[in-house]
């Protein structure tokens, strides 16, 4: 059995279980405390005790932090440097099942970046970085200007077909365009705002 060993101790502000729907944050119960990173767990001081996220339960480290989350963090705790950790926890509803949860860590830029750089390889997230939301915006604008050929869209955005398909689905789900790539009134309005 592997023995638990400390790797780092940092002072941070966090929400251990944040309520998020898509990219929107509905929690504001930021807690200022101490975080220990070990080879097995993340330990968060909470109230008078400790809560943990086992590293093996972490499903993603460092997904994109939207501007709205940054603004909320800035307003609540005075920093825009936030790290999102997606993890699995035992379900409160079904015994033996697990449920998705999200933790938000915020603080000094260097500390947040270091935690991300340390956690991603430990939790198996591949070191690749691409701006997805930027592709959404570019795709929306290109559809608006009438460029809808898939090959050209892929070339211009530098995105692979899957990423582009996901981005297109995202635009369609938000009712910004229809199945043929024609922009809805809402989509056109969005482009005008972007311009």
């Amino acid at each position, binding site marked *: 059995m592997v023995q638990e*060993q400390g790797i780092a101790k940092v002072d941070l502000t966090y929400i251990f279980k944040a309520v998020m729907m898509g990219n929107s944050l509905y929690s504001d119960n930021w807690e200022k405390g101490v975080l220990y990173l070990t080879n097995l767990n993340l330990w968060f001081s909470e109230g008078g005790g400790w809560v943990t996220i086992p590293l093996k339960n972490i499903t993603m480290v460092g997904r994109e932090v939207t501007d709205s989350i940054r603004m909320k963090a800035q307003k609540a705790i005075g920093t825009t440097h936030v790290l999102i950790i997606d993890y699995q926890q035992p379900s409160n509803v079904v015994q033996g099942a697990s449920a998705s949860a999200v933790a938000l860590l915020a603080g000094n830029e260097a*500390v947040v*970046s270091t935690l991300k750089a340390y956690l991603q390889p430990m939790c198996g997230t591949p*070191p690749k*970085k691409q701006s997805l939301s930027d592709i959404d915006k570019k795709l929306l*604008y290109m559809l608006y200007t009438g460029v809808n050929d898939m090959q050209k869209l892929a070339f*211009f955005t*530098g*995105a692979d077909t899957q990423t582009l398909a996901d981005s297109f689905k995202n635009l369609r789900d938000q009712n910004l365009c229809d199945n043929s790539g024609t922009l809805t009134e809402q989509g056109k309005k969005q482009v005008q705002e972007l311009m």
Partner: protein
Amino acid sequence: MSDTPPGLPPFMQDSAGGPPDLSGGSFAQSMGAFGTLLKVQQNISERFPKSKVPWNETRKFLKCFTIDAIRSNSLHKFHMKLFNESGLGSMQLISYAPMNYIFAVPNNPICNCYPALNNQKVCVATTDALHRFFTEELELECAVEETECIKNGDPVCKFRVALQPISAYQIMLDEQDKMILSGVRPPVDQNELIERVKALTVYKLLDNGKLSEIGNAYMQFAGNMKVQEKIFDPPWKKEEEIAAVASKHSTFGSAFGEMAQKIQDTPAEKAPPATSPAKKENPKLQEEAKKTDSFAELMAKMKKNQEA
């Protein structure tokens, strides 16, 4: 919200005295490694915001079509130096295709920050730093991926930077290029015209001297796009000027005076002298330094002046 942390977490109470068992990485190594990585991130946080590059320099970089040309480009040299000074190792460009760059880092110090991890790619810090440098400091949207890693058994760490063509075109194409794409001859000489057409062909916007499908789609897309080019000095300008002064003068003493003048002439760096006598003394010192052939001679003159 509680500001007072509880006592030690249970793992610290239970494991006291227990031998470390981290497949090759000890507790002390891991703690030290985290500190090293934190220092690198602090360097990045401090240095990168001061490294914004103007579009005209990025344009020159994008219009280099051979590895040798890129290596002698000022922006590329600055990039390599910035990464090295930030603690990200001695990065080298090893492969190039338009809008695609492969960088290698031999003996990557970032790999040493993960003593307990093996058989996987670990260089998130370098990947993120490259992404940040290209997207924020150069305004070039891109995808960055670590393709090889020393920790994964490869001889060096390698990173692929793939630029988003729209983003590269937005910065690379100036008014003259746009005129060419619109079928209008820009007011440039024949040689420059040939160079520009060559660049537009390399970037697939022209094909056999005519607007390509990509070029046509881009012009359709970019027609309504309003872009505002900000003009400012590149972050390496002062350093280059100082290097030029140093190579122009045969002695340290004479170079020193001109360098001091250049540093004082930089508006952003201008700070009021602490006392008024120093204010009067500086121009005098600079004049002396210009006239002096060696540093020893300058020192002797200064000493003499002080005594007088």
